[in-house]
């Protein structure tokens, strides 16, 4: 057999075996990964949503598209928390496009009175030791109880009331702005977000 054919065949076999092994691994891990992601969402939800809901918020969802939630206008899932039928609030992910390095995904929860009940950063690529303090400290707790009207939205450096960190202003600034956008969006579409229907709502025309 000529040398070059042998090379090609060897590479082909290596590639085929690798593909088979990877396909098998993917099949085995698909369900556990899905479950791990679901648990992660549930954990974030219990942290931001008001206490005492008795439904499963990850099963009571509605999707909406709005430029204020993320610039790519991908559908955002709203998880609704209810207690014996009455609505306690909704949690959803706002994406801040202007973090120090890439997007910051923030899960925020708002109750029907448009008061924030919790804020959690769920995904970010901020600098370890600087920007990631928004995850590692209790900084997001400051948002609890804030509304569009009762807070000065902005970091202290910009005349607002939220702390920035020494050496990290960009991250908190991006998050504060994103949370505010999320609140505004919630205010405009409160009815459709909290109503019991579950089908996707078309993007709001401006």
């Amino acid at each position: 057999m000529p040398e070059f054919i042998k090379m090609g065949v060897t590479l082909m076999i290596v590639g085929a075996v690798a593909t088979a092994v990877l396909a098998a691994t993917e099949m085995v891990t698909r369900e556990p990964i899905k479950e791990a992601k679901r648990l992660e969402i549930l954990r974030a939800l219990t942290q931001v949503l008001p206490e005492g809901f008795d439904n499963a918020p990850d099963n009571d969802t509605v999707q909406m598209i709005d430029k204020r939630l993320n610039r790519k206008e991908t559908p955002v899932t709203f998880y609704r928390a209810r207690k014996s039928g009455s609505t306690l609030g909704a949690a959803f992910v706002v994406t801040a496009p202007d973090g120090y390095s890439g997007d910051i995904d923030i899960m925020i929860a708002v109750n029907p009175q448009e008061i924030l009940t919790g804020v959690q950063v769920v995904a970010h690529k901020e600098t370890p030791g600087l920007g990631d303090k928004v995850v590692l400290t209790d900084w997001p707790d400051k948002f609890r109880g804030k509304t569009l009207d009762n807070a000065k939205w902005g970091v202290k450096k910009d005349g607002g009331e939220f702390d920035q960190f020494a050496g990290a202003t960009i991250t908190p600034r991006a998050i504060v702005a994103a949370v505010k956008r999320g609140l505004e969006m919630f205010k405009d579409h409160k009815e459709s977000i909290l109503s019991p229907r579950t089908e996707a709502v078309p993007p709001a025309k401006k």
Partner: protein
Amino acid sequence: MSGITTKQIIEDGLWTNNPVFVQLLGMCPLLGVTTTAENGIGMGLASTGVLLGSNVVVSLVRNYIPTQVRIPSYIIIIASFVTIIDLTMNAYVHDLHKTLGLFIPLIVVNCAILGRAEAFASKQNLSKAALDGIFSGLGFTLSLFVLGGVRELLGSGQFLGFTIFGEGFHPAIGFILPPGAFIALGFILMVVKWIDQKREEAAERREANQPPVPTDASQPEGAAAS
């Protein structure tokens, strides 16, 4: 090389030929993830898993792969193991997977792993290749842990997540940032060289049983890194 003993493999992997301290390979994950000691251990163990897998498979197929296509074949093998580790970690240690994030796929380009496959596993039998994979990996883990520990201690005043220094300590944030990794690594390499020199002197003294001769064991660091 074929007559290498088990003891030598273990010593080489952990110290004398440590992937980071001596060979200066795998700098990308080294600098990227070692902001804390915990990240260092996680990344080190993930790399150890890949090293073990790739060393074993490379050793098994070493007589069937033509020399000309061995590098692409090794890369495919390594990449497959990285993907397996990536998926498995995502499924079963989801939180650590999230912290290490982008750096797990980047294990593929860790030249320490291809280096072991090419320089060792492709010439050795299965058990020696496996042993080398484990101990090179542990050597890599050790260096990531040390560097991560130093940076965490100086950069945020913590160790493994516990605060070590009180309120009065002002952390040097620079050590958390990439330049800090280079600076910390430089000093760690200095200490490693110093220990090596001491060991060498002690060995000589034992042999000759006479006052030590000053040895010139200092290798310029820049030359080793290039």
